[in-house]
């Protein structure tokens, strides 16, 4: 994709969003960044609608954009009739000509660095792994198509809808440039706010602190959503303050839209609607005003919840699975996933300040000057400072659920504003701090104080941005063997192939369906089937046999009675009479609690497929078979793997009179041989589930077994690149 198409995709998207925002805000607010952000909310909703209709085509987007663009010039869309009220605080903070020039030079320099990085091929981990892979998928499908194999598809995708609009014309880099537009809009809005409330120097200082921050820079030039959320949050704050002062009724729907859009951009913006509704009600004491905000927020939030409900039966997916139980994400996975992000690899929360400002142990740094952030508390003496710190709390409330540095980006502008207000009390100090920040945020300086592997902008790839060099070389250099692997997939598999991988890949660069083990409960099962064929500990070699006096039974129930960390699983459950298995009858009613959706796997005669609780064991879990008639039995045999030593089971029987009674208090446990041919059976099982290829990296567990035993697996290596091997299931 050439630079012209990339720029067109991004500029067209921003222009259409701005036009929509101009129409909505009318004369109530004439500032570009706010108009762009409000319009982006509406455009996002429009694209959502087009996705629902299956009308995702470049020509449709072009027609919609061309039709909407004139709105910017329609009546009532003119400049602000509420000019910013510059409460000049006796000129104490008036920007000197020197300060203006210094700020302009610094910001312009970084603007250029960011622009060229955003235009360069998109290589961010999450952007290439899922943000843009879904965007590309929706474009290929011309709309929404249920994605149940990747939990990230359940996150709200408000910004991805804008990415899709740009992607249709300029592909990956156009999408990244749309996020870059938010990166530009954010400090601009901050400065406007500072000027409005009589702190122009503080506003300029804060805008620079945020814009130059290494984590903000790398996030904002990538197809991520954190900077977009920060921009939406600050624009919402800005409109709330504007409405508080001037009370133009036209702002209320825009406030609602932005509050809802915060949720749509990223779940961590969930408190924005409550904040906006509460703010408006507290100020006006009119239910009607609050209702307008709420009613405007709902259309931005509800579609994502409804989509999730329809696709994965959980409106808040991939979280809260204990309340919205579903077959797509297990409670255990959610627990492990969220537990990790509470501390990453730190050992104490006291390490967070250093990690996020200097050492980069939490995937990027804000910059060392943010060690001064506690100064922000001194701004409590000003009303404007109190408002900002309240907003910082609202948008930072989730931080301890994921302490990654970029999760501080949404509250960062509010903190920076208050820091700026305090710093501006001392002449020239804001400028000095910004100068130091500019030096410390320079791409070649950052590695001097961060640990190796820090996430930040590394250079100015202007030749790559302008596509003067081979894009493929840049991608292989920056995305490593993951990119090489997806290109191999693209070259060596047919168009509708499905590939299974244990490790995440930059899926945005392949049109094939890639199933990553950890990204859904179904994928986890696939991984377990493969490992169960060769890995000690999960081979189906454990036998638990309940013996009881022969009797007629209408059903049996295996009940788990212990608590612990293990997950209970059953590969096969057999009912036996006189040493002969009672033939399974399609009329049998099989149930399980929890995770009833896969109980059929325990009755399918496959030693590899299994039913699993999906959550740590607790008393009361059960598997039940109702025969719908009486069957003679004297034994129940469970075949499973030995990785569940904490389980304690008892067997109950349903008598002909409909009463349950204890048949055996505990099973006899023994080992049994793993059947021969498990590897081939595993490959066949994956094939039966629509998988045609396996991708393995040489440093992954078991990779050597696949390579050495291709004949036993029934697979054939069809490609190898940079330590990644692609196998076809034969």
């Amino acid at each position, binding site marked *: 994709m050439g630079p012209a198409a990339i720029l067109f995709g991004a500029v067209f998207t921003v222009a259409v969003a701005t036009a929509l925002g101009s129409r909505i805000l009318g004369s109530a607010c004439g500032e570009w960044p706010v108009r762009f952000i409000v319009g982006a909310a509406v455009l996002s909703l429009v694209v959502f609608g087009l996705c629902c209709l299956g009308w995702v085509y470049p020509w449709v987007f072009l027609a919609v954009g061309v039709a909407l663009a004139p709105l910017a010039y329609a009546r009532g869309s003119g400049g602000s009739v509420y000019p910013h009220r510059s409460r000049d605080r006796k000129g104490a903070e008036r920007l000197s000509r020197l300060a203006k020039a210094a700020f302009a030079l610094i910001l312009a320099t970084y603007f250029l660095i960011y622009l060229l990085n955003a235009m360069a091929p998109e290589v961010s981990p999450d952007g290439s792994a899922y943000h843009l892979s879904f965007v590309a998928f929706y474009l290929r499908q011309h709309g929404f198509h249920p994605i149940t194999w990747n939990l990230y598809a359940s996150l709200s995708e408000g910004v991805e809808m804008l990415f899709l609009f740009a992607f249709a014309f300029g592909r990956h880099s156009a999408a990244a440039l749309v996020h870059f537009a938010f990166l530009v809009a954010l400090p601009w809005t901050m400065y406007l706010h500072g000027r409005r409330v009589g702190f122009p120097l503080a506003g300029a200082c804060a805008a620079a602190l945020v814009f130059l921050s290494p984590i903000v820079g790398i996030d904002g030039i990538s197809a991520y959503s954190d900077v977009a959320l920060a921009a939406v949050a600050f624009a919402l704050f800005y409109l709330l303050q504007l409405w508080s002062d001037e009370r133009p009724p036209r702002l209320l729907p825009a406030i609602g839209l932005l509050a809802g859009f915060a949720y749509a951009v990223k779940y961590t913006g969930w408190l924005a609607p409550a904040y906006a509704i509460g703010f408006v009600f507290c100020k006006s004491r009119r239910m009607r005003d609050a209702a307008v905000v709420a009613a405007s927020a709902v259309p931005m939030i509800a579609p994502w919840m409804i989509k999730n409900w329809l696709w994965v039966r959980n409106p808040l997916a991939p979280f809260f699975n204990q309340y919205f139980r579903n077959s797509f994400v297990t409670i255990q996975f959610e627990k492990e996933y969220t537990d990790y992000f509470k501390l990453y690899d730190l050992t104490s929360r006291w390490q967070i300040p250093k990690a996020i400002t200097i050492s980069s142990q939490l995937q990027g740094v804000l910059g060392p000057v943010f060690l001064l952030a506690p100064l922000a508390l001194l701004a409590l003496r000003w009303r404007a400072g109190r408002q900002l710190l309240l907003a910082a709390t609202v948008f930072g409330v989730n931080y301890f659920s994921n302490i990654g540095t970029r999760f501080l980006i949404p509250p960062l502008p509010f903190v920076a504003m208050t820091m700026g207000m305090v710093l501006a009390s001392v002449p020239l100090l804001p400028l000095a701090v910004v100068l130091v920040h500019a030096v410390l945020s320079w791409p070649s300086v950052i590695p001097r104080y961060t640990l190796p592997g820090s996430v930040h902008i590394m250079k100015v790839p202007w030749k790559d941005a302008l596509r003067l060099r081979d894009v493929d070389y840049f991608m292989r250099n920056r995305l490593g063997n993951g990119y090489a692997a997806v290109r191999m997939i693209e070259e060596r598999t047919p168009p509708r192939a499905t590939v299974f991988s244990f490790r995440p890949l930059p899926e945005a660069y392949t049109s094939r369906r890639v199933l990553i083990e950890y990204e859904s409960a179904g994928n986890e099962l696939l991984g377990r089937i493969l490992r169960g064929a060769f890995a000690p500990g999960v081979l189906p070699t454990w036998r638990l046999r309940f013996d009881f006096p022969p009797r007629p039974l209408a059903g049996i129930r295996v009940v788990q009675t212990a608590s612990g960390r293990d997950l209970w699983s059953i590969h096969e459950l057999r009912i036996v009479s006189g040493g002969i298995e009672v033939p399974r009858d399609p009329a049998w009613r099989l149930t399980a609690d929890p995770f009833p959706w896969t109980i059929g796997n325990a009755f399918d005669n496959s*030693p590899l497929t299994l039913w699993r609780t999906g959550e740590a064991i607790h008393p009361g879990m059960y598997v039940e078979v109702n025969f719908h008639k009486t069957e003679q039995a004297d034994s129940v045999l469970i075949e499973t793997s030995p990785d569940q030593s904490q389980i304690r089971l008892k067997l109950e029987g349903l008598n002909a009179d409909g009463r349950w009674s204890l048949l055996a208090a505990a099973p006899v446990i023994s080992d*049994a041989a793993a059947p021969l041919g498990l*590897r081939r059976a595993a490959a066949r099982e994956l094939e039966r589930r629509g998988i045609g290829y396996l991708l393995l990296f040489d440093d992954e567990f078991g990779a050597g077994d696949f390579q050495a035993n291709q004949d036993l697996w029934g697979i054939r290596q069809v490609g190898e690149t940079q330590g990644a091997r692609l196998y076809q299931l034969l």
Partner: protein
Amino acid sequence: MGEALLGTLGNYVYMNQPEADTYIVGGMRAKSEGPWRWALDRPMLRFYVPEAARLKFQMDLTFPEKEFHETGPVTLTLALNGQVFDRVKVDKAGSERYSNSVPGELLRANAVNVVAITPDKIAGGDERLGFVMFSAGFAE
């Protein structure tokens, strides 16, 4: 149902399996002690081996300190259907996992195969004790 639940032989046996006796031709103690069983002077086991591409013979064994002190290093001679296919020297006490490919021509596919594991030295006393066996059989 596959394994020995119905009294049929499989390709591998754990000594704590209820049907372990079915696999033992001789040279083993009459009873398992939990998951293991003493092998005596010339243990012989039988397995039903289905058609398979490549097979390995595997054993999980232990040479207890006390008996090993008496015998010193031990060489095991492994024979399949009367033909020697491997010799293994064990030169220290403790757990051993043996796993090695079996010549395909010695195997009888879809039939019962007999494996003899003969130690060159065994500990003396009232009972002649060779080593402790946990599991043995054919695997891929």
